[in-house]
């Protein structure tokens, strides 16, 4: 499954040689539920059938949903997310498979992520607290969000 990031979700900075600084439009900077809605909308109709998670999704849809690094959406554009993912996989070649990343992400979230018992924000906060972090392209990230970017980069080569 391949999709293009909707053009209205990000802007190109004129003359920029550093896409990592390219901001998103204010549209994507609204509360997480709206962000999530925009993202999921961009993923296609099938995903919308299960907007709270991957429960009941096909394997392909599951990957897509897990690959949404919601925490970083307010600050990173598509290219940045992909670059983070690519760089993470260079650092962790053992995780360079969608199935491996899905397994790791699901193992982290258990069955709680999609049911809302333990929001992603809490998982990430706990990872920061426990030092389960990783530096990718200078970004200091929770490992889970780095893996989400990695999966996202594999889905969007």
């Amino acid at each position: 499954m391949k999709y293009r990031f909707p053009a209205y979700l990000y802007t190109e900075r004129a003359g920029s040689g550093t896409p990592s600084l390219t901001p998103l439009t204010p549209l994507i900077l609204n509360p997480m539920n709206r962000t999530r809605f925009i993202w999921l909308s961009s993923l296609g109709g099938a995903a919308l059938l299960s907007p709270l998670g991957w429960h009941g999704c096909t394997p392909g849809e599951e990957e897509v949903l897990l690959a949404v690094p919601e925490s970083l959406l307010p600050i990173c554009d598509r290219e940045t997310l992909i670059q983070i993912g690519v760089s993470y996989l260079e650092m962790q070649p053992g995780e360079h498979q969608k199935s491996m990343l899905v397994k790791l992400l699901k193992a982290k979230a258990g069955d709680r992520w999609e049911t809302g018992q333990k929001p992603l924000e809490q998982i990430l906060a706990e990872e920061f607290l426990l030092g389960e972090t990783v530096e990718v392209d200078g970004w200091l990230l929770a490992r889970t969000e780095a893996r989400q970017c990695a999966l996202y980069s594999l889905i969007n080569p």
Partner: protein
Amino acid sequence: MHTDTRTLPDNTLIEGDLCIIGAGAAGISMALDWLGRPEKVVLLEGGGFEYEEAIQDSYDGPGSGQKYYPLKASRLHYFGGTTGHWAGMCSPFDAIDFRARPWVPHSGWPIDKSALDPYYKKAHSPLQLGPYPYDFDFWRQELPNAKALPLDPGVVSNKMWQYSEARFGPLYRDTLANAHNIALYTHAKVVELVANETVTQLKEVRLQMLDGKTHRVRARQFVLACGAIQNARLLLASNQQAAAGLGNAHDLVGRYFQEHLEIASAECWFFKPQPMSLYTYTWRKTRASAELALAEQIQERHQILNGTVSFTPLPIGKYRTPKMQSYQDKDPRKAWQNMNDQWQKTLKKAAEVENGPVQWAYQLNTRIEQAPNPESRVTLESERDAFGLPRAKLHWALTALDKRSIRTLYEILGQQLGIQGLGRIRLNDWLRDEKDTGFPDSTNAGWHHMGTTRMHEDPKKGVVDANCKVHGLHNLYVAGSACYPTSGAPNPTLTLVALSLRLSEYLKKGC
């Protein structure tokens, strides 16, 4: 009384009770502290009341090691010294800065912060600062918009700053020139400290005029207050009776030169706009502001140096030219102008920046002490200036601890932002490789010269003792940041004025 030394007949002998060499923040603060007393204070300034190229040239000298500002432009050589263009940032050192920290080689002062506290408060007077308290709880009541970022105070604290606009030259010229017990001599360039035959006390200092005339000054007590580079230069150059220079029996004079590393280190991307008034500084408007600092126990746990983090809006920060690049003209006036021009260009570019989260993203700037390093040092060149004084050479050398401390500082801050769900941090390129201990040429320094006559009770480990007296010489003292064994995170002026006032009180007891 004021005298232009150039008008005196050749070989004039000037006498007083206390001779202060240098009329910058340290020297003037001390002289003010002696107003109205029975003792006669001789205050010597090598320059006049305004900038003079022929005088300023005396500060020129080569550098090596880490890229640095031209020495000639890094200090002002006239009455008032570098307060003539300083930024006025003031904050006291932390208690940890005075302690011997096992993870910081050569750290530890022979005094603790409580010894300086009364003088910090007193230093607020010449610096024309507000109330002395620097704790955040005090300023939270004073500043209506002082809302702190919601970070764990056990890890990250708010280090408060106040801002002085005191230009010591115009502020105190008349006061000192009209004082009955202060003899202010301008164009009184000291080129040699002359000791007695046994080299146990200073007998006199020798003044050199550009026209060839020389004069002498005798006093019971002498205080060197010329700044860390010039103090070391004078001690090293005074080698007629001690081959290595006065106070240099253990090859320490000029060593341990320290600066503050002031460098853009990371980006902070908040998920949403944050109230940043507390962390914002506007020239002549901000009474006090904060920078983020790590709690002492966190520094100890991670074995790092003490530093702070300030915020610059990223649209400004990403276009800003490093000071180390824009302040490279040897003429301090031109260097300053160039730096200001670059700043105006930066503001213009920043105004064109796009919408989006970049508008509430920030460049994180480190301000951190430099680890004491004996290889970072001031030495003498064979070339001499127009007064016949050997020029100073600076070899500025940083260490792996400096680099690791900065990186760790942001790892911790990034972790705290993550825990609180406030945003993410992105390290700048130069900080990403853990194994790289080097610093780029764009590394800024604060124009803060410290540590060349470090304080230690053991003459083998320090040039001056806890009272700032040069070891082995009964009546020679050093005032200012040259005495710092470690450099703390804050700009040095408040502490150097406090230390000078402490020395002043000590000398009053002896005079």
